[in-house]
C-alpha cells in the first residue's frame, strides 16, 4: 500500500465522491459560524426552503463585531448599527435553526478559533471549516481545517459537504530545539520570512520537527493559524500525547469507552515515516530569534536585533519597490534598528495569541513593571470568556492593570478594527495578531507582528526590545 501524508489520510477519510472534472465532494465534520460571513448563507437557505443537513455539526459565536468594553446593555448596547445588526442576526439565525451558539453574554463566547478547540468542538481527524481564513488554526489538532466563503458556508449548511480539489503536500520541518524565549509565533514568522506569503499557495502544509513537537497546543495553534499568511489554506500538525492530553475532558470531547476508541484511532493521524511530500522546507530551530515585522506583509519580518532593510541593496526591481512602498507606509527609514521603532499602542489578543498561555507569557514580562509613558494604549483582549475567567483566577488581570494595560472582554477587537478598538492614522502598534496589511488595524495604522512576550516587553520599553533581555 502506498504511503500517505497526514493530509492524504484526512482527505481520503472524508472523500464522499470523486468527480470526473477533478473536483471532489468532501464531508465536513464541524462548521464554526460567526456573524460576519454567515447572514447571507442563512438567508440563502431560507430562500431555497432548505434545512441545515446536520444541525449538531455547527457551532456559532459572535466575535468580529462585539464590543470589548462594557456589555451590560447586551446586543442593543453595540454602538455601530451595522455591527449590531450582524450580531443580532447571528442570534436570530441560530435560534431559528436550532444551532448551538455562545451568545455575547455567555461566558463561553469568544473568537471562534479559540472557542472551538477550547470546547473540544475541534477534534483530531476532523474536517473543520468556517467562513474565516484563519480556520487553519484547527489543523494543530491533526485536523483538516480551512477557511471558506459565504456561498460555501451555505453549501456546508445545506449539504454537510464542500466541493474541493486536492492540494499538494508540503512539509515544513523545524529541526532541533529553539532557544529560551522563542515561541510558536517566532517560529511561524520565521517560516513565513523564509518561504514568503505565497510560498504555501496550493499546498496543505504539515509542520513537523522537534521544535514543533515541543510546542504546547497553544503554540501549535499559533503556528497553524498563520499557515494562511504563508499562502496555504490549511496547516496541520500530527497528533501526539500533547494533543490527546489537551482534548481530554473538554465539553464536546468523547467520554468513557468512546474516548478510548477515539484515542486509538487518532494514533494514526501522522504522516507515514516514508511518506512523500511535493515540497520540503527545513529550518534550524536554534537559528530562530524573536521576530518583528517591519513592513506591510507578514513576510516582511526580521529578528529584533536586525535593521530595517535598505531598498538600495536590493537588485530585484519588484522587491525593491515593495520595500520602498512599505517603508513609506510604515514611516520608517532604511537601515534604522528595529529596536528604535517607537510605539503608540500595544495589542495583545486575536485568534493567533489570546489563549491562556499567551496571557501568562505577557503577564510574566509586565509583572511589577509599568507601561512606557509614551504609549497611548496597551490592550489585553482574551480570546474567550473562559480564557478571561481563567486569567482572572490566576490574577493575571491584576498584573496587567497594575502595569497600566487595559483588560477587556473577549473578541477580535483591534485585530481587524471592526469594533471600536482601532489605530489612529500613522500610529505604530506592536500586535500579537496575524496581519500587518495597510489599514488592517485602522485607517493609516502601522502594525508590527510579534509574540505576546515581545509585545509585553515593547509595552514596557515603548519600543521593541529582545524579550530575552527581560527574562534574565
Amino acid at each position: 500500500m502506498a504511503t500517505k501524508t497526514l493530509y492524504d489520510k484526512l482527505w481520503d477519510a472524508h472523500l464522499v465522491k470523486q468527480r470526473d472534472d477533478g473536483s471532489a465532494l468532501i464531508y465536513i465534520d464541524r462548521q464554526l459560524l460567526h456573524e460576519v460571513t454567515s447572514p447571507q448563507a442563512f438567508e440563502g437557505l431560507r430562500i431555497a426552503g432548505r434545512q441545515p443537513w446536520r444541525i449538531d455539526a455547527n457551532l456559532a459565536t459572535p466575535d468580529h463585531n462585539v464590543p470589548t468594553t462594557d456589555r451590560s446593555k447586551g446586543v442593543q448596547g453595540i454602538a455601530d448599527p451595522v455591527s449590531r445588526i450582524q450580531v443580532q442576526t447571528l442570534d436570530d439565525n441560530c435560534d431559528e435553526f436550532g444551532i448551538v451558539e455562545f451568545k455575547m453574554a455567555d461566558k463561553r463566547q469568544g473568537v471562534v478559533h479559540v472557542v472551538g478547540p477550547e470546547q473540544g468542538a475541534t477534534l483530531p481527524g476532523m474536517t473543520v471549516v468556517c467562513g474565516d481564513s484563519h480556520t487553519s488554526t484547527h489543523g494543530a489538532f491533526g485536523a483538516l481545517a480551512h477557511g471558506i466563503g459565504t456561498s460555501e458556508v451555505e453549501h456546508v449548511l445545506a449539504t454537510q459537504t464542500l466541493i474541493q480539489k486536492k492540494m499538494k503536500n508540503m512539509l515544513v520541518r523545524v529541526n532541533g530545539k529553539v532557544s529560551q524565549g522563542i515561541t510558536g509565533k517566532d517560529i511561524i514568522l520565521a517560516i513565513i520570512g523564509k518561504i514568503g506569503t505565497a510560498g504555501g499557495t496550493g499546498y496543505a502544509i504539515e509542520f513537523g520537527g522537534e521544535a514543533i513537537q515541543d510546542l504546547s497546543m497553544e503554540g501549535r495553534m499559533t503556528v497553524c493559524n498563520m499557515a494562511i499568511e504563508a499562502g496555504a489554506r490549511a496547516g496541520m500538525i500530527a497528533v501526539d500525547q500533547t494533543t490527546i492530553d489537551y482534548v481530554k475532558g473538554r465539553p464536546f470531547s468523547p467520554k468513557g469507552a468512546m474516548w478510548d476508541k477515539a484515542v486509538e484511532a487518532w494514533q494514526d493521524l501522522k504522516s507515514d515515516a516514508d511518506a512523500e511530500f511535493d515540497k520540503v522546507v527545513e529550518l534550524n530551530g536554534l537559528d530562530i530569534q524573536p521576530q518583528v515585522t517591519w513592513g506591510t506583509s507578514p513576510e516582511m519580518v526580521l529578528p529584533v536585533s536586525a535593521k530595517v532593510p535598505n531598498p538600495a541593496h536590493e537588485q530585484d526591481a519588484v522587491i525593491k519597490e515593495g520595500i520602498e512602498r512599505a517603508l513609506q507606509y510604515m514611516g520608517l527609514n532604511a537601515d534604522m534598528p528595529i529596536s528604535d521603532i517607537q510605539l503608540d499602542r500595544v495589542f495583545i489578543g486575536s485568534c493567533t495569541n489570546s489563549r491562556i498561555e499567551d496571557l501568562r507569557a505577557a503577564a510574566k514580562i509586565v509583572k511589577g513593571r509599568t507601561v512606557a509613558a509614551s504609549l497611548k494604549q496597551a490592550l489585553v483582549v482574551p480570546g474567550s470568556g473562559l480564557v478571561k475567567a481563567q486569567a482572572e483566577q490566576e490574577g493575571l488581570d491584576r498584573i496587567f492593570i497594575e502595569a497600566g494595560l487595559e483588560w477587556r472582554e473577549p473578541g477580535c477587537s483591534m485585530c481587524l478594527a471592526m469594533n471600536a478598538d482601532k489605530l489612529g492614522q500613522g500610529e505604530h502598534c506592536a500586535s500579537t495578531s496575524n496581519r500587518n496589511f495597510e489599514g488592517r488595524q485602522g485607517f493609516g495604522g502601522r502594525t508590527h507582528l510579534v509574540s505576546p512576550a515581545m509585545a509585553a516587553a515593547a509595552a514596557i520599553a515603548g519600543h521593541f526590545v529582545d524579550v530575552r533581555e527581560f527574562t534574565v
Partner: protein
Amino acid sequence: MRKFTEMNGVVAPMDRANVDTDMIIPKQFLKSIKRTGFGKNLFDELRYLDEGKPDQSCEGRPINEDFVLNQARYAGSSVLLARQNFGCGSSREHAPWALEDFGFRVIIAPSFADIFFNNCFKNGLLPIVLDEAIVDRLFSDVAQTEGYSLGVDLIKQQVTTPNGDSFRFDVDTFRKHCLVNGLDDIGVTLEDASAIKSYEERRRKSAPWLFASSNA
C-alpha cells in the same frame, strides 16, 4: 433555486443602453446582511425622486411617475426588455438579487455584461439574448399594446409573442439543466444526497465520536 421551465409574463421596457449594476441597485444598499429585500430599491435612483437610504421604508417616498416600473400598465411585470450591455459595472450579486426580488424572471436584451450574465443563472433569472432587430420590434410592440406579454419556454428555447410569432434563443446546456431543474451548486451536490448519507452511515459506525452531540 426556483425551477424555470416556461412562463408567460407582462413585459416592462427599459429603454436605455448600458444600464449598470449601480443603477440596478445603488451601493448604499450593499451593507445589508440579506440577499432578499433588495426589490424595493431596484433602480432606486430612477424610481424615486429623493435619495434612498438603507433601512428606510419606501412607502411615502416621492415617486418618479415617468419611470416605467411606476406606471400602472407595467404592474406585475416579470419580463424586462432591455438594451445592449445590460448589467455592466461592478460584479455585485446584489443586482440579480434585486431584479429577482422585484419579480423579474426573464431579461431580454441584445447583449449583457459578462459577470452579470453569469450571476443571473446562479439566482434563477434567465437572461435571453435576441437580435437587435427583434428587440427593436418588441420595444415597439410593448409601447403599442397595454398589458403586452411574452411567453418564454426554456425547454424549447423559444420566446413567443401574443400573435404567435416565435424567436429561438441560445443557452448553455449545463446552465439550462440547472435552471430547468432548479439546481444551484447546492442543488447539484444534493443530487448526490444518497452518497453523502451512506458516507455518513459508514462514519457513524467507524468514528461515532464525530457525531456525538455535545453536553455543553
